[in-house]
């Protein structure tokens, strides 16, 4: 028989009471707190009313409510993030989807409004199952990786998180080391690639590595060597289709004029770029230029018909790697032709 309890007892013992119990200490008066709680809703109502009035007056949308809702969503996501405490789960690689998605609002704004990315062929990315995405790498900072991730998350019919592989140098850098892992990246180690693919993830690799990002402005859109084709053998072993991606526009975000390698060695960086703005303008020089971007996803290269033994066949592996490289290079030239101007 369940013992009768008084209302106070039930209230005290309920789990809800634990959550809503106010913190001890100073509290604002109740009307003020109510206003605090409701102010964002009032503000939104006011803005929407204003937008309706302005549309009537101007005959077109002056205030884009979708954008405003995105900002509101971003603020609330950040707030939730700050309040969640240690009660969240990360996967074994240290990937935290909630943390990552809270930043996607910013990346979507960059994607849509700043670089005006035009994405084609995103349907080649499978909605489920594993795939190895291979892209050209350019720009001093890996914004191209961010934009590919945003493209699949924003444009695909089944938004998915892409797990990129980063050079191990970045894992030794403060802030980078945790930020990259938190947002789903892993070390560019064959073992990590295999594990991610076996979990049916989308894995993004840049076979050019820092040779691609650290090349000078005069070499723009000329792909570097594609490593030793290691990505192909990993894909064959994991039976994952290879999806080549051509990115255009990333080369112009930081026109790299020179490389101060002694300074790079001092800071443990792969290169120390000199652009028209960096390091002359300080942190302002880190703002990327608003070039016009195009991202093209190519049809997948199937490797499932190849036996696992083929991964050791260096000839086949290098031939496939060259094919993928050619596809990407051709895609880069095609998209350069389609682009009207660097900043248009």
């Amino acid at each position, binding site marked *: 028989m369940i013992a009768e309890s008084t209302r106070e007892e039930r209230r005290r013992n309920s789990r809800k009471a634990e959550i809503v119990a106010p913190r001890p200490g100073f509290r604002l008066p109740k009307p003020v707190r109510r206003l605090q709680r409701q102010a964002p809703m009032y503000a939104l109502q006011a803005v929407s009313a204003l937008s309706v009035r302005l549309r009537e007056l101007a005959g077109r949308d002056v205030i884009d409510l979708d954008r405003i809702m995105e900002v509101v969503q971003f603020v609330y996501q950040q707030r939730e993030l700050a309040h969640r405490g*240690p009660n969240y789960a990360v996967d074994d690689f240290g990937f935290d989807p909630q943390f990552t998605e809270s930043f996607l609002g910013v990346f979507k704004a960059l994607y849509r409004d700043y670089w005006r990315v035009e994405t084609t062929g995103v349907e080649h990315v499978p909605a489920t199952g594993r795939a190895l995405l291979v892209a050209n790498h350019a720009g001093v900072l890996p914004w191209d990786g961010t934009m590919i991730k945003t493209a699949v998350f924003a444009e695909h019919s089944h938004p998915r998180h892409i797990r990129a592989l980063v050079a*191990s140098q970045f894992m*030794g850098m*403060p*802030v*980078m080391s945790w930020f990259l*892992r938190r947002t789903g990246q892993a*070390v560019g*180690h064959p*073992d990590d690639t295999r594990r991610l693919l076996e979990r049916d993830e989308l894995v993004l690799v840049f076979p050019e590595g820092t040779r691609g990002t650290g090349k000078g402005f005069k070499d723009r859109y000329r792909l570097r060597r594609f490593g030793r084709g290691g990505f192909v053998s990993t894909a064959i072993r994991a039976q994952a289709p290879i999806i080549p991606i051509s990115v255009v526009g990333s080369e112009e975000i930081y026109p790299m004029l020179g490389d101060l390698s002694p300074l790079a060695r001092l800071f443990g960086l792969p290169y120390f770029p000199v652009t028209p703005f960096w390091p002359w303008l300080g942190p302002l020089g880190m703002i990327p230029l608003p070039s016009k971007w195009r991202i093209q996803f190519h049809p997948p290269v199937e490797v499932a018909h190849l036996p696992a033994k083929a991964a050791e066949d260096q000839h086949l592996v290098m031939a496939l790697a060259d094919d993928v490289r050619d596809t990407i290079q051709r895609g880069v030239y095609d998209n350069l032709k389609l682009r009207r101007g660097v900043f248009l």
Partner: protein
Amino acid sequence: MTPFTPHRVLLTGVSNPLGAEVARRLAPQVPMLFGCDVADPVSALEEMDFVHADTRLSVIGKLVRQLHIDTVVHLAVMVDPAHDDRSVHETDVIGTMNVLVGCAAPSSPVRRLIVKSGQAIYGAGPNDPSFFSEDMTNWDRIATGVTRDLLEMEQLVSEFALRNELCGVTVLRLGLRVSEDTSLARYLSLPIVPTFTGFDPRLQLLHEDDAADAVVRAVVGDHAGVFNVAGDGVVLLSQAIGIMGGTAAPVLPPYGRWVSRLALRMIAGVDMPAHLADIISFGSVMDCSRLESAFGWRPVYSSREAMDALALGKQAELIEAPSPPQEYELQVYLQQRRRRQHQLTASRN
């Protein structure tokens, strides 16, 4: 050939908490259990015969031959020392060498050897893969402290396994444990936890119960080879600090970590051994799939649950006194009381 079952088991290092727990669980499962350590056992066990013996001396070989030991469980290995000093090398390398020599005699009765090792053997660095599997020990790593000692120890053990095919050798690389007396637990229990600026690594933990369980399963079952033993999943360092109710203070500079370690010892009186400094900046996670497939068992506590258990203070399980009191316990009790009185008089003088 009939499957081998352990009859006469020798446990080294029974006086450390893990050894005591293993002895307690093993006692009902094997006919004869002998324990040896340099220190007195923390709790007495009726079924176990305790010998004062130092693994660093050759007496261990005599013990093995005289007692006709067929299974040696070598737990007198420091996998998580509080300091980096000479005694770790002595215990881990020289002690293990002695145990191996004791087991390696031509007419040796030893048919099974279980050696405790630790996650520290992999070290931790930015160039390492996200998961260490058993064959990823980096023998060429310029290692310091306990990493180097464990590498040297395991090299000895693998040589022994190659030479003595009759003896099945199991090496258990135990994950980081967070009971009260490990260096990681002491570090995480600080009210303000100094961390390296800009680093928030993944930690993988192993509950004390699971560690003991794994050792017992290795003794009773027949699993030769090297195995990683650690809980499922990972906990971020910041999460772990949050669970413990502390505050993370990212005050230690990310480069020149030995300076930070020295400063911590001088100013705060906190000892941070080199392997711990590496782990709390780069993290270290093991792949335990081999354990799961060979043992058919996985640790019960995930990393997160092990952390929660520490936060709840339920990590250490009290070993209840057996009743009625036995002659052996009485002897141990009297011996301990004599020692205590002796120490008291010594401190008074």
